[in-house]
């Protein structure tokens, strides 16, 4: 039975009630407690720095060469907060409701409310840390709109908000390193979790420079390893982003929730060839001023600027008049896919739609548009060679954010005692679809504000236990298993590259488990992925050695886990016989082609247990005490 540990009391008092009752640890004792944080993005760096400030002994690991490179760095558009600075009717309640509705009522009320409630103090925190958020001439902070919302609550630092927040967190991390409260391990990748007597006690990592396996023990382990959309291979994520840490945790007993809920972002640059390694994201903030359209005529090969106004279909404005170009991401992506599939796509491969700034430039002047999105236009030009001030951008949907992740309770603890999952790698707050600018928010809130207030509830008891040494038999066993796994991979000595198999996996996942899914396709995908798995373990070739820097080996280890995760994603998508948010099952749609949710049958969080290669479903019922789930309409 899954215990979500939602505190008693009315929604607005739950977090306070929780804090009043949670256990405390005195400063002298905190020093004796060790916490491992895996990942150094907003969630990981925020948590590691804050836990260190509180007095815990912290070790923080990341696979990159520096904590400053974690993929939070790439978030462009902004971070939401219910400050109501624009005096436009915003409030904690409205933000809570927008987020819950945006997620199509597949998340917990209490978690989402806490997210909205802590958003305002988070902006205070980041301003104090020196984040150069955009400001008015009067010196106050500026806001802009994001998708799925009718107020302006997004704070931003040009198109580099994620970078600025991450650098603040990274700086704070180094402040605590200097204070000798945090030890940092860049270029180290977690390859397994050590669980002793049902409690997490440490991790096994590989030093990516020497190839050496190392053991680290701790009283609690926090996973902050981000999203896993690289399972699609082509995604907006960094090339190194992976699902390995959470997958190993899953195989050691942590339940995996809503694995198939993946956000496909509507405004990425279209794919141009098979050799492509990633799809570059253009911030959703562009939809504030850019208008999305396709030609009314199928296969129209005229240049965009030659197509007259009356022959353009501004399909989002037409279909969703009240939200228009700012419809939520899942809806905007699916609408684009429908246009492209129906033959209205534009660009060389006919796989894109237009995002046009002509009207915005006419209305506000080119200088204003430059001020708002200058760096994004510059980036667009660098990659495509096209000047988007003169002709519209071409954009296309791309795999982006994982709403799914390890199942966590209200305390952000997984089903393994002492193991926490924070940020994108947990499932908690976004339901079946995440609203723009809520990602930086959730990662930061989890890391800075929630975890440092909940981990003590577990660690207070851990104080009474004897510390475990890395000489313990379970550490040895785990390390040996990792070594065997690596050896097995190295010894395959087939004739195909890791990337070959990743492309194969990506094609299946994109075809059957992305924007639109159906039973037949998912069943087929599962058997195809099983074949890819068999072939991978028979035919992959990894050159170079084990005990040296070997990027092929790193990729292979990550892909081996992605393949298994892909199976779980398809299994999950197959089980959920309804459409909700980003999960669109073709069998379940309204006459108008909108998602048809089934609250009677599927108002639960799917939490999957790993059982010797099979997946067992557990259900956490979602109870809505404050909000009546409605049909999500943006019309």
């Amino acid at each position, binding site marked *: 039975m899954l215990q979500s540990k939602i505190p008693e009391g009315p929604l607005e008092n739950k977090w306070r009630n929780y804090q009043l009752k949670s256990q405390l640890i005195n400063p002298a004792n905190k020093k004796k407690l060790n916490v491992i944080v895996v990942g150094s993005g907003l969630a990981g760096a925020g948590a590691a720095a804050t836990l260190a400030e509180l007095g815990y002994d912290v070790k923080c690991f990341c696979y*990159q*060469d520096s904590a400053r*490179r974690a993929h939070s760095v790439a978030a462009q558009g902004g971070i939401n907060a219910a400050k109501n600075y624009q005096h436009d009717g915003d409030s904690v309640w409205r933000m809570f409701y927008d987020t819950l509705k945006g997620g199509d009522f597949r998340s917990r009320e209490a978690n989402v409310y806490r997210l909205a409630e802590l958003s305002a103090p988070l902006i205070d925190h980041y301003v104090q840390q*020196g984040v150069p958020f955009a400001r008015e001439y009067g010196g106050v902070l500026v806001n802009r709109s994001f998708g799925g919302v009718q107020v302006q609550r997004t704070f931003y630092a*040009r198109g580099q908000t994620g970078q600025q927040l991450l650098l603040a967190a990274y700086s704070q991390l*180094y402040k605590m390193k200097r204070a000798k409260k945090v030890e940092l391990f860049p270029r180290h990748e977690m390859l397994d979790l050590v669980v002793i007597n049902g409690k997490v006690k440490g991790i096994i990592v590989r030093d990516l420079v020497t190839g050496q396996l190392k053991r680290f023990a701790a009283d609690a382990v926090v996973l902050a390893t981000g999203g896993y959309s690289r399972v699609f291979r082509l995604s907006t994520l960094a090339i190194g982003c992976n699902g390995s840490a959470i997958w190993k945790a899953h195989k050691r007993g942590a339940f995996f929730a809503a694995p198939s809920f993946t956000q496909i972002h509507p405004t990425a640059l279209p794919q141009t060839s098979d*050799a492509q390694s990633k799809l570059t994201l253009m911030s959703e903030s562009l939809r504030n001023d850019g208008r999305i359209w396709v030609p009314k005529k199928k296969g129209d090969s005229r240049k965009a600027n030659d197509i007259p106004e009356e022959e353009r279909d501004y399909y989002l404005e037409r279909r969703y008049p009240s939200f228009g170009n700012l419809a939520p991401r899942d809806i905007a992506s699916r609408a684009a896919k429908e246009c492209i599939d129906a033959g209205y796509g534009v660009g060389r491969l006919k796989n894109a739609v237009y995002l046009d700034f002509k009207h915005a430039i006419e209305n506000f002047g080119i200088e204003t548009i430059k001020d708002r999105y200058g760096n994004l236009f510059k980036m667009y030009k660098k990659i495509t060679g096209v000047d988007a001030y003169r002709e519209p951008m071409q954009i296309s949907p791309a795999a982006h954010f994982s709403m799914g992740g390890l199942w966590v309770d209200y305390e952000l603890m997984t089903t393994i005692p002492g193991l926490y999952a924070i940020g994108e790698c947990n499932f908690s707050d976004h339901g079946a679809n995440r609203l723009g600018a809520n990602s930086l928010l959730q990662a930061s809130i989890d890391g800075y504000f929630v975890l440092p207030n909940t981990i003590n509830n577990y660690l207070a008891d851990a104080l009474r236990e004897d510390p475990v040494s890395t000489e313990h038999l379970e550490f040895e066993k785990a390390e040996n298993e990792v070594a065997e796994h690596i050896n097995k991979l190295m010894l395959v000595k087939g004739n195909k590259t890791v990337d070959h198999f990743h492309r194969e996996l990506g094609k299946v996942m994109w075809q059957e488990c992305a924007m639109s899914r159906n039973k037949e396709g998912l069943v087929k995908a599962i058997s195809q992925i099983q074949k890819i798995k068999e072939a991978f373990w028979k035919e992959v070739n990894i*050159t170079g050695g084990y005990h*040296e820097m070997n990027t*092929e080996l790193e990729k292979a280890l990550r892909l081996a886990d992605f393949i298994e995760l892909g199976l779980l994603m398809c299994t999950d998508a197959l089980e959920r016989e309804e459409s909700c948010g980003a999960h669109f099952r073709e069998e379940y749609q309204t006459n108008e082609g909108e998602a048809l949710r089934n609250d009677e049958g599927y108002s639960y969080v799917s939490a999957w247990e790993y059982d010797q290669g099979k997946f067992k479903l557990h259900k956490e019922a979602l109870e809505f005490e404050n909000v009546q789930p409605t049909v999500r309409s943006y019309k």
Partner: protein
Amino acid sequence: MKVIFKIWRQENTNTKGNFQSYEVDELTEDMSFLEALDHLNEVLVTKNEKTIAYEYDCREGICGQCGVFINGRAHGPHDNMTTCQLHMRSFRDGETIVVEPWRASAFPIVKDLVVDRSSFDNIIEQGAYISAKTGTAPEANSILVRKEIVDKAMDAAACIGCGACVATCKNSSAALFTSAKINHLNSLPQGKQEASKRVLEMTKQMELEGFGSCTFTGACEVECPEGISIINIAEMNARRTKAKWIG
């Protein structure tokens, strides 16, 4: 499209390296430079040879992890661009492309084209932060900042920490990197409390790490992917002088 990559290969920090040439076929102009290297690596795997180590992560010009010398220039032939943003359309069919790691004694080579830039993190550690604990912040709009000030701070804060400034500098100076961070924080009201301490300690660390001195040639700002201006260096020097003599 076909090119010849002449690439620096080096087993690890302690061994000697050398150039090796690879003829690579089946490239297209739309491929990014790193995708061309990916392709070369796939070819090497099918020939059962060791792949080339090079760095990247986000591949959209923001994480700062990529960075190599290409035909004698940091991040390749264009100004203000990262390696991952460079595309093969910038090269001629049949061209020989020389690829080297960043060269600076403060950035030791780890393997092939991979260098160790932890010296940058060490500079950050000496004060590139505001000493306030989580949970102690006043209301955000109680700190007013003039738009011109915050815009200027943002120009400096945009640094991605790639190291191109150091690699291209004839003195291997880290003055642009260090000054960008100092000016970001010292120009904002939040950073004022520790301004003097910050500039003194960070510049001291910069020297301890073995970076050279700045002779103001301006080479760095040409290669900086964020186009950070060398005016920052002048400003840092002024701040440092003031901190030293006035406090």
